[in-house]
């Protein structure tokens, strides 16, 4: 390992060196590859499955950057996702805004803002208390929004006729894949920087980290705000894919699947989540067709087995093997 690995600086050569990682490159190849494969039959079930997979991968990346890297479990992720979907629904209602990029940016902004407002007071609490609030506060907020719903002159069942993201699933897949590639690259660089090192330090022993000099709060605030923004963006995409945003956008599947993906990909690995995202979501789509009713039960069962037998994900055993091969004999 080169001795200056932990240093900052945005030199192009340094960035290239950092990105020359097998896992990152594999994830990038997967994104490009699946985007290409999805073009075969633009309206196929396969292309649609890839579109849905891409949205879950965005959520998984958001979860991994924040909760995965720091160990602060944020169960409010589906709230920010739903908020993003509603923001897109709200602005597109009665044809106010028809521009998809504008809608996505609005949802991103609302996600960032809501994430910041949520994270600022709650991140002062340590792990379990933070997690509890991450469940409670979004529940309360959702309740308040829904009870004032009709007074706000909103459509009762939810927003419909939201502009579609693209004319075909294949076209939508290109947009989603491009953004995922950007997020993957950005988050991966962040993980490998001094900033990411502090996040991993937080997960290992935050008390020792701050006692020995690192003020951890700003780091946590940044990643949880970013993650909420990404979730808001993902919500906008979802709303524009199904052309609808209703109360069921706040579903817990938008929490459970991203977590499952991150565990399988290796918590805190970032790039692993992309690979695992395709595996999990394509399998899920296949199961949906094959088992219909039983899908969720089969899947939850698989998740439990996974956590029991591969708590470090699929990459970790590989990684420790590589580490083992590289480490010289101890003196």
């Amino acid at each position: 390992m080169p001795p200056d690995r932990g240093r900052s600086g945005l030199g192009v050569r340094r960035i290239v060196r950092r990105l020359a990682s097998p896992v990152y490159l594999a994830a990038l190849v997967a994104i490009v590859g699946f985007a290409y494969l999805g073009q075969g039959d633009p309206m196929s079930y396969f292309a649609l499955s890839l579109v849905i997979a891409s949205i879950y991968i965005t959520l998984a990346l958001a979860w991994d950057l924040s909760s995965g890297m720091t160990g602060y479990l944020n169960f409010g992720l589906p709230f920010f996702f739903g908020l993003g979907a509603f923001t897109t629904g709200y602005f597109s209602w009665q044809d106010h805004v028809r521009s998809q990029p504008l809608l996505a940016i609005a949802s991103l902004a609302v996600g960032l803002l809501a994430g910041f407002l949520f994270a600022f007071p709650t991140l002062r609490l340590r792990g379990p208390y933070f997690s509890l609030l991450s469940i409670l506060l979004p529940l309360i907020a959702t309740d308040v929004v829904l009870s004032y719903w009709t007074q706000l002159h909103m459509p009762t069942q939810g927003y419909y006729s939201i502009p579609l993201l693209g004319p075909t699933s294949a076209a939508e897949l290109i947009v989603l894949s491009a953004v995922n590639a950007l997020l993957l690259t950005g988050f991966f660089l962040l993980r490998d920087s001094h900033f990411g090192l502090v996040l991993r330090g937080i997960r290992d022993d935050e008390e020792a980290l701050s006692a020995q000099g690192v003020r951890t709060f700003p780091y946590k605030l940044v990643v949880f705000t970013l993650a909420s923004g990404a979730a808001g963006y993902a919500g906008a995409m979802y709303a524009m894919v199904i052309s609808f945003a209703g109360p069921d956008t706040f579903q817990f599947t938008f929490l459970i699947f991203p977590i499952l993906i991150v565990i399988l990909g290796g918590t805190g690995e970032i790039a692993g989540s992309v690979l695992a995202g395709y595996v999990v979501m394509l399998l899920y789509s296949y199961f949906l067709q094959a088992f219909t009713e039983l899908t969720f039960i089969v899947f939850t069962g698989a998740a439990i087995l996974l956590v029991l037998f591969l708590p470090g994900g699929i990459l970790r055993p590989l990684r420790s093997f590589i580490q083992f091969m590289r480490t010289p004999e101890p003196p």
Partner: protein
Amino acid sequence: MSLLELADVSRSFGGNRAVDRVSFDMSDRVLAVVGPNGAGKTTLLNLIAGQLRPSRGSIRFRGREISRLAPWRIVGLGMVKTYQIVRPFRSLTVEENLSLFARLRGKAEVGEILQETGLREVRGQLAGALPFGLLKRLELAKGLASRPELLLLDEPIGGLSREEAQGLVGTLEALKSHGVGMVVVEHRLSEILPIVDRVVALDQGRLIFHGTREGFFEDPSVRAAYLGGRDAGG
């Protein structure tokens, strides 16, 4: 001006006065804090490092009142504490453990610290995989990474073999000669004695002696409370 100045510092846990009206000035490089188990040594270091708030009293570092500051601010001023029970960042490499703290005050040369503390050979290994002796060294190195002027060391050689301890004391001696100040809590006083300038002795939270190391062994109250019957050398 003294490096460190404690005036009337107390801290209780429930009814138990772990540190009881302790006052002293530190102007030399290396101060040893000794006393039997439960005397309040760790509590005293935690108070100085800002990890506990004193119930009363004032603590000054280079003339500045610090008893209400957060620990990370105190590190920023140039004082850091290491843990008696080591707390490495287990999923990070040895080098990354140091990099975490290397830009808090100016820029520390991680390579030099690895060299000084004898961790160069293992710099790429995960901290979680290190043997105990190296973890004790890593604990010291983590402290050094924020380039402190004053290091608070809680039993830096506790649990080490005699040879390992000798090596570590050699490292501390080199640090002292580079101008780093140290408050060393240590059970095994005889082994760190060569680098000690002054000694503070605690017993049941109270300061019973403050003076030179020569004076320490001659002091009647020390003999009675601390050396009396038991072995001070650990």
